[in-house]
């Protein structure tokens, strides 16, 4: 699977939780991302694979099962890497790149439509507002993870214990709720 977004959105923590959940089921896991220059507000893509045995940490373009888009433009940029009958879960958020802010380029206004036109199954989730209703906007990642989990075959318990391990102690309860909310949104769209 692929996770795409903008540096600073908490993609690395999210991919960490996914990896840990798979590990808890005794599966082999590999995940890859690039830190550094690409992080300063630039595009970030994290790759994650699990199974009985994983060789390459990278995925051949056009074969990923699932794309988790933390930001719409980044989801669209990466969409072709998903297999034609794959799933794109996209967070309903737009972050303007500097090229747009400075007026050099235009942020596409029809991304929802463009995503659907790729032919992949698209699940849209308004994670920001869900997290806001729960009173913790920092739980956006975990809302998105809930939606993802509803589409995967890992046990819910593995997810819950991975979340408990990785989020700050004080924030465990609200994150578990966030996960549940995301799960419900994702489940409805099966």
């Amino acid at each position, binding site marked *: 699977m692929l996770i795409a977004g903008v540096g600073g959105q908490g993609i690395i923590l999210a991919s960490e939780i996914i990896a840990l959940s798979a590990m808890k089921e005794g599966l082999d896991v590999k995940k*890859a991302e690039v830190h550094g220059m690409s992080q300063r507000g630039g*595009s970030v893509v994290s790759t994650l694979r699990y199974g009985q045995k994983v060789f390459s940490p990278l995925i051949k373009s056009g074969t990923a099962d699932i794309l988790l888009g933390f930001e719409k433009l*980044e989801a669209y940029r990466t969409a072709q890497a998903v297999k034609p009958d794959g799933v794109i879960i996209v967070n309903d958020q737009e972050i303007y790149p500097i090229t747009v802010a400075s007026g050099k380029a235009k942020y596409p206004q029809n991304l929802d439509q463009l995503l659907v036109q790729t032919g992949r199954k698209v699940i849209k989730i308004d994670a920001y507002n869900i997290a806001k209703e729960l009173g913790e906007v920092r739980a956006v990642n975990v809302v998105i993870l809930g939606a993802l989990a509803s589409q995967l075959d890992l046990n819910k318990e593995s997810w819950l214990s991975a979340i408990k391990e990785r989020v700050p102690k004080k924030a465990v309860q609200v994150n578990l709720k966030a996960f549940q909310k995301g799960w419900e949104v994702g489940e409805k769209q099966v």
Partner: protein
Amino acid sequence: MQKVLLSGNEAVARGAYEAGIRVATAYPGTPSTEILQAVADNYPDIYCEWSVNEKVAVEVAIGASFGGVRSLSAMKHVGLNVAADPFFSLAYIGSATGGMVIVSADDPSMHSSQNEQDNRNYGRHAKVPVLEPADSQEAKDFTVWAIKISERFDTPVILRLTTRISHSKSVVELGEPVKPNKATYEKDVNQRMILPAIARKMRIKVEERLKKLIEWGEDCPLNIMEIRDKKAGVITCGVTYHHVREVAPELSTLKLGMVYPIPPKLVRKFTDSVKELYIVEELDPFIEMELNHLGIFPKKGKDVVPVLYELNPERVEAALKGEPDPISPPMPSDIPNRPPVLCPGCPHTGVFYNLHRMKARATGDIGCYTLGALPPLSAMDTCVCMGASLGNALGLEKALGEEFNKNLFAVIGESTFIHSGITGLVNCIYNKGNTNLIILDNRATAMTGHQPNPATGVTLMGETTHELDLAELARACGASYVAEVDPYDLAKTRKALEEASESEGVSVVISKRPCALIVRDEWKPALRVDVEACNGCRLCLQVGCPALSMKEKIAVIDRVLCTGCGVCAQVCPEEAILERAVI
């Protein structure tokens, strides 16, 4: 044993612990930085330090080895260029008293680097063994092996990682730590004074050592031969092995964990077992040239496997099938890019905004501030390597005359200045330059994740230490004009820059303010735009702050991103950018 998920870098740190290493040094550099960070965070028994540069890092590690202690020194690929001098001497001196591993993290595809050099070549060049792990488990295990080999064969060992190993996480089964060596010191000039007469003897040792290493490599557990289909077999190393297994699981493989020196008998055994031989390796034809030297020529090698950029499963598959290189995956081209940018509230912005307004020329250096070269600031002209800005500026001055220098600035971060800029400053003054230098002191080595450095007065192990006074240092070197400014104050910064360029001799302006990311608690409330006053002139966008954009011809400030630094407010001719409380 316990299984955990570790990045390659974290695994090397764990390996250092299991190998009984007690001194670890580094200068930060992507993708190697997290190795020392992980040592500092997890293994308090290991002394660790951010050295001022890679050369010093290796020299400290050599000192520890002289004292009988196992040591590790980590750096990015270009770091080994800086450390090459002690490294080549070390190759002669050896490490019999305390094992030494030099970790070189290469960056195929230059995700965060200025070049793509293949540091396996350093192994051949210095006649030193190179180990290359293919995942985190091997990153840990090979660190332990590196120490064993280092002590047994009296040689430093290069542990070569790549970005894909350093920054990928995979499952690692932990091992038991061995007991560290006992620290002792015995004077032994014949082993440690690399004078010509002694070096000539060491030279013989180096050649004999290589022979022994080759012998050992013939059946060492690091080189793994797997015979599957006998029709064809692949010799490969590192993460590329996994790409090969992914796309061509039927092929036989010889994975060289020790990629230098290459054991000829083992290679021949493999080539005799398969009908066709392929070599699949990232970057240079390193294995291939070694094999050519043995008279072995693969059916497929660098004629089909690209030399440029990182390999991945699809590129390997295309190469093996003889298809064109799918160098970049399909992506929509009609949507805006998202280049990296200076953060909101970045103190570098104020300096670059001024340089831009002054239409100054600037020789640049490497750090976050390299991003000041991008539009809309477009405030730097050159970037060569760490520390180059000063020499480059002096060279321009000598080539074009003093007049040219009036509006020319060398721009360097404080960590980079300490790394390799101080010598450039001394050189400018010694050689009667008129160069203007700007040191961007943001109280952190920010680019690589905010490591402390001598100007911050804190060590990697969290101790407070002497804080290097950059202004005093500049004066001691002989700078004729030295000023410290707050880059959030655009007018004062401008004044200092103008005074610097007007004054005779070498001038130094120190821009002093902590990186906004390390002082989040000092952020002011987000600014806001007075929509009545804003005339849509877009001047504020010249600051290049990601928190600013235009909507319907009016400037808007992103409330989440804005740190309240106030730089844009100073730029606005209509005074339309205000503090929140004022409206």
